[in-house]
């Protein structure tokens, strides 16, 4: 049971932890208060329990495709929030302190939604063991190990970002944010394919022999870059569109705000 737990929990924790550490590091760069993470994590944990509790009902929506559609919607929402966060970070890059309230709440919502989606699966998994007490120890131990690895990677990643040279940290953070965001588009597209909202296709290539999605490294790359061993053309297109869209928007905002005296009002 242990290995199962490790893999399951690690995958879910890693995604939320990486997003959290990127956003947390950026908050520190901008000298924002970091108390928002407590709100975000509390909301995320409570949200997971509620979502997990009602997943059965959610699944029956959209002709049995509720789970896929809601999850895809969540991923797209987080993508949108990351886009907003990226733009606001650029607007604040020289300490302008603009829209800080909005920025913080976007971060809270993004982390809370990510934690909610990932946490719900862990919650459902663990409550299954209420009736299988003899397996509970292994499952919990595995969950602890998985969670431990996930949060450790997140913490080290956070300090790695904090250690970046001052001039390059915003660029690095934005690149990472864009990659994570593109990964979200990829996952959402996969879910829409599964729900039959998008046509199914044959995968273009298969790199599972090189790097299994199941390994710790594979999971790390999945969470960070949206690594997918057997992607279909749709999924690749979604990844690229998501990436190009975000990068283009960020660059255009960056260039616009470089000119002095140009007021920029951005709606994302």
């Amino acid at each position, binding site marked *: 049971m242990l290995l*199962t737990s490790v893999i*399951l929990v690690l995958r879910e924790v890693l995604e939320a932890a990486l997003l959290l550490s990127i956003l947390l590091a950026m908050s520190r760069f901008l000298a924002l208060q970091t108390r928002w993470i407590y709100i975000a994590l509390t909301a995320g944990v409570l949200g997971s329990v509620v979502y997990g509790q009602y*997943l*059965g009902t959610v*699944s*029956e929506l959209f*002709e*049995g*495709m509720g*789970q*896929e559609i809601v999850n895809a919607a969540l991923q*797209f*929402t987080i*993508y*949108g929030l990351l*886009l907003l966060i990226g733009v606001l970070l650029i607007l604040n890059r020289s300490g302008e302190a603009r829209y800080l309230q909005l920025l913080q709440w976007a971060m809270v919502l993004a982390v809370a939604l990510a934690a909610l989606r990932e946490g719900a*699966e862990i919650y*459902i*998994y663990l*409550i*299954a063991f209420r*009736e*299988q007490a003899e397996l509970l120890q292994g499952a919990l131990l595995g969950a602890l190990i998985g969670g431990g690895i996930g949060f450790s990677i997140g913490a080290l990643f956070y300090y790695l970002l904090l250690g970046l040279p001052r001039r390059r940290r915003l660029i690095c953070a934005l690149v990472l944010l864009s990659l994570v965001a593109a990964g979200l*588009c990829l996952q*959402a597209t*996969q879910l*829409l*394919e*599964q*729900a*039959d*909202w*998008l*046509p*199914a296709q*044959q*995968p273009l290539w298969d790199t*599972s022999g090189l790097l*299994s*999605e*199941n390994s710790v490294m594979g999971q790390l790359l999945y969470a960070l870059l949206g690594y*997918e*061993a*057997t992607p*279909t053309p749709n999924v690749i297109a979604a990844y690229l569109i*998501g990436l190009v*869209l*975000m990068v*283009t*928007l960020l660059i*255009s*905002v960056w260039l*616009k705000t470089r000119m002095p005296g140009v007021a*920029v*009002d*951005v*709606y*994302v």
Partner: protein
Amino acid sequence: MKLPSENPVRIFVALTALLLPMVVNAARPVLELEIRDHLFYPSVLKIPANTKVKLIVYNRDPTPEEFESYELNREKVIMGGQKAIVFIGPLAPGEYPFFGEFNPKTAQGKVVAE
């Protein structure tokens, strides 16, 4: 600034809406899979190659299970006593293992496309 690229969600919804008509609700082969005592019945599913099939998975256990396959890129939680629909394919001929992520040692099976 009112770039058209500013609303990614809307664009994705629009994109999805464009693609939707392509999804023809033609009569697809329907297959059934059951989960009992953390086992898949049948554990070997034969489906026609290069055809999209509709797989209905019944979870007869009281506990939840997650139908998962890396090879098929599918992942879906099925609560205890519920059923779920998973579309599979079109697949090239070959074997595609799937498993129950919550009980991966016993809940194992494979799709054989031929």
